[in-house]
């Protein structure tokens, strides 16, 4: 079983194999994403009841929370790739690491901006320098740092190792973001879903939230595959498989 896994892992990591596999998956993933998105939006905007404290403004939650979850999830993906890059020097992990960064930065930006748009009517301000907001902003800078550093080094294999270190070091920020609302006094509300207790959110609001979160996850894979395919073509442009692929 283990041997089989190792064999599969090596095959999976080979650029031509991954390029083809990702191409096969993309239409299915896009279909799944569309279904999830429509279901999540309908559930969140139409079916979910009005909040008794926040009125309709709380509906921002259905983009804000999935985006914030993704901002942390993608960072973990990046850091995991960073470890693979440093330990095994795997080419595919280098490409995934560099391709995940702009998507992660987009979701972080989205989480910050939708949070700010939710903060204005509920807290009376677009921005406060409190722990949750500040640590999320630092996450955005970490992403931008990864993108900038990767772009600044010409040799992409060296660049990948450099950003791998940055990504791994930056991982300390992830638990800080998650626990910031417990460790410090914050305007931001505490966790209602991701905690060991039962979620303190009504089921009618929870399910659209989870469906949207799943839709965002699938979307991330779609966007990542798309980017990785483009980057693989570019990186491997002098190899036989690319030549054969382009000519056929």
């Amino acid at each position, binding site marked *: 079983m283990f041997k089989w896994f190792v064999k599969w892992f090596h095959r999976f990591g080979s650029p031509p194999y991954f390029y083809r596999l990702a191409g096969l998956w993309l239409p299915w993933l896009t279909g799944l994403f569309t279904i999830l998105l429509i279901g999540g939006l309908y559930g969140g905007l139409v079916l979910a009841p009005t909040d008794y404290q926040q009125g309709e403004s709380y509906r921002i939650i259905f983009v804000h929370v999935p985006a914030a979850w993704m901002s942390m999830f993608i960072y973990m993906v990046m850091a995991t790739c960073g470890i693979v890059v440093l330990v095994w020097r795997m080419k595919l992990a280098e490409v995934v690491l560099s391709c995940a960064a702009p998507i992660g930065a987009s979701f972080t930006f989205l989480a910050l901006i939708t949070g700010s748009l939710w903060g204005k009517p509920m807290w009376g301000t677009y921005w406060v320098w409190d722990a949750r907001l500040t640590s999320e902003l630092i996450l955005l800078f970490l992403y931008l740092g990864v993108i900038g550093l990767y772009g600044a080094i010409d040799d992409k294999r060296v660049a990948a190792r450099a950003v791998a270190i940055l990504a791994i070091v930056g991982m300390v920020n992830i638990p800080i973001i998650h626990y910031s609302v417990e460790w410090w006094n914050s305007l931001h509300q505490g966790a209602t879903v991701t905690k060991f207790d039962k979620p303190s959110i009504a089921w009618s609001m929870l399910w659209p939230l989870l469906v949207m979160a799943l839709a965002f996850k699938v979307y991330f894979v779609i966007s990542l595959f798309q980017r990785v395919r483009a980057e693989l073509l570019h*990186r491997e442009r*002098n190899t036989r498989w690319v030549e054969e692929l382009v000519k056929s």
Partner: protein
Amino acid sequence: MSMSEFFNMGGYAVFVWTSYGLAFVVLLLNWFLPYQEHKQNLKKLNRQFKSGQSRQETRNNDSRT
């Protein structure tokens, strides 16, 4: 619930719809830009290979890899 009530979002229309609009734009860009980049890479490589350049020559033209 009427249509206008729905779009009014209990008076929070600006905040709610701006959020959803921005999310839409961000998602669209993250799909479209890589899609276009991939297509352009394919086209560029196709031109290179068609113009009779061998793999060896492409390599010499770009020493960065």
